């Protein structure tokens, strides 16, 4: 649409629109990486955690499904074949020399072999695994309730978080590799469905899913459920561990409370 002066109005409007849109997007990207704005956005997590904790009773259970619902193609994610030397040594002889160490702010630090853990009372649950990416898979897990172990070692009163140290180094092309770790608050650590699983779908836990032992936290997202667990520690605060945000993905911007 050209008027008498040869002015291309439609072209002009289009350019204004494209320029405006580009500036807006660039502005949003700038905000996304600016400190003050991230701090503001991150505050929503406190509101989410407080609200969910208020709504969620300590005994509210994640849904348990039937055998028929189990995913035939449960998707392994994150590390699926750790190449860390100490892990390869352990897996070479089927984790016979592996021991789970539980310490930190506890009365009696203890160690368990796989056989020791299998001898403890177990819980089996068929639950839905919700990945932060959006997909879900259903699997059957058998393991020891975390609370059983915490009761045996006896938490000191100042213990507020349970930290899980893993064997795998998760490769991150940008940030460089780092050992996986995670942490839970006591309400989730002591929940009945929070177990350390050594079996999946009736079989010994496969390497892709975290052999020999992985955490299940059924009321949160998949990245909370540390695989290849080596050591558990009770702490008062996780600020001085690694990136200080309480987990591998938390140090990379994800929420510590992964209830949504």
């Amino acid at each position, binding site marked *: 649409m050209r008027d008498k002066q040869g002015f291309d109005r439609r072209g002009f409007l289009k350019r204004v629109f494209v320029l405006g849109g580009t500036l807006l997007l660039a502005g949003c990207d700038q905000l996304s990486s600016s400190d003050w704005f991230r701090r503001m956005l991150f505050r929503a997590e406190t509101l989410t955690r407080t609200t969910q904790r208020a709504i969620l009773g300590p005994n509210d259970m994640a849904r348990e499904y039937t055998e028929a619902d189990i995913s035939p193609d449960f998707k392994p994610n994150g590390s699926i074949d750790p190449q860390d030397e100490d892990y390869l040594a352990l897996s070479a002889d089927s984790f016979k020399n592996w021991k789970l160490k539980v310490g930190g702010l506890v009365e009696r630090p203890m160690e368990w072999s796989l056989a020791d853990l299998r001898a403890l009372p177990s819980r089996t649950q068929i639950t839905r695994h919700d990945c932060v990416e*959006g*997909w879900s*898979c259903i699997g059957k897990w058998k393991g020891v309730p975390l609370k059983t172990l915490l009761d045996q070692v006896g938490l000191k009163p100042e213990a507020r978080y349970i930290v899980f140290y893993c064997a795998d180094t998760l490769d991150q092309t940008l940030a460089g590799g780092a050992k996986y770790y995670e942490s839970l608050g006591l309400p989730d650590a002591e929940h009945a469905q929070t177990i350390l699983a050594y079996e999946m779908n009736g079989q010994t836990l496969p390497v892709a899913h975290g052999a020999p032992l992985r955490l299940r936290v059924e009321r949160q997202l998949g990245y909370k459920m540390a695989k290849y667990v080596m050591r558990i520690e009770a702490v008062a605060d996780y600020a001085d561990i690694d990136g200080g945000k309480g987990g591998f993905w938390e140090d990379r911007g994800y929420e510590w409370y992964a209830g*949504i």
Partner: protein
Amino acid sequence: MSAISEEGVPTRRLIYRHRLVVRITHWINVLCITVLLMSGMQIFNAHPALYLGQRSHFDSPVLAMGQAPESDEKPVGVTTILGHGFTTTGVLGVSRENGELVERGFPSWATLPSYQDLATGRRWHFFFAWLFVANGLVYLAYSLTSGHLRELVPSRDQLRHIGGSIWEHMRLHFPKGDEARHYNVLQKLAYFGIVIIVLPLLVLAGLTMSPGIDAAFPWLVDLFGGRQTARTIHFICATLVVLFILVHLVMVLVSGVFNNLRSMITGNYAIEPKEKPDAR
């Protein structure tokens, strides 16, 4: 009743159309929905496929976007809907990021942030989700107590004459005079549908994706028939919101953009007098 000038000819006059609370919540909504749609597409891009049921049936998605296999030399974007594939290179499945064709669900210009960053997308999404819900509750509380909500419910008489209203809209003839003082039947249906049905459904379906909320309210999972169905419904509702916005913007543009914008900023709206039949 039209205003009559001294000469006895009906004139254009200003009425107070949108009350302050409606105007403020409208503009907060514009901000929230823009951010939610764009960060939502960022989150979708982390796994650009939708499913039905409790879990993901990876080999039978209802919708999937991605790069066609063996198209590394010259990437081809494919969008699959209910098993039917469409080439969507440049927009969906494969699009340009920093000048290069890469595999991604929605294109860079539509997502927040523009680069792939699920963690930051989630931070934007949940912050503005809280603001959106708070804003929506203020609007609903006000609408219920002020009678505004009733203005959105079509009368039986209006519904009977819906055919005529559609015909008038298609010819871009909009109500004048006293008729323009109230929402017409198509406006009522559109606003009522979006505000009372689609947006609450969208929020509920979003909450149903939360494993924490599902443990607290297991009935939500049943209401939607599974977490993956809830994710699909969340996506469909968001698509309906986009369609609503497109129609809304077109209507604002063709029915007097200045008058419409003024009424949503200052509240004042000019009503044109109804032409007398013999004036033609």
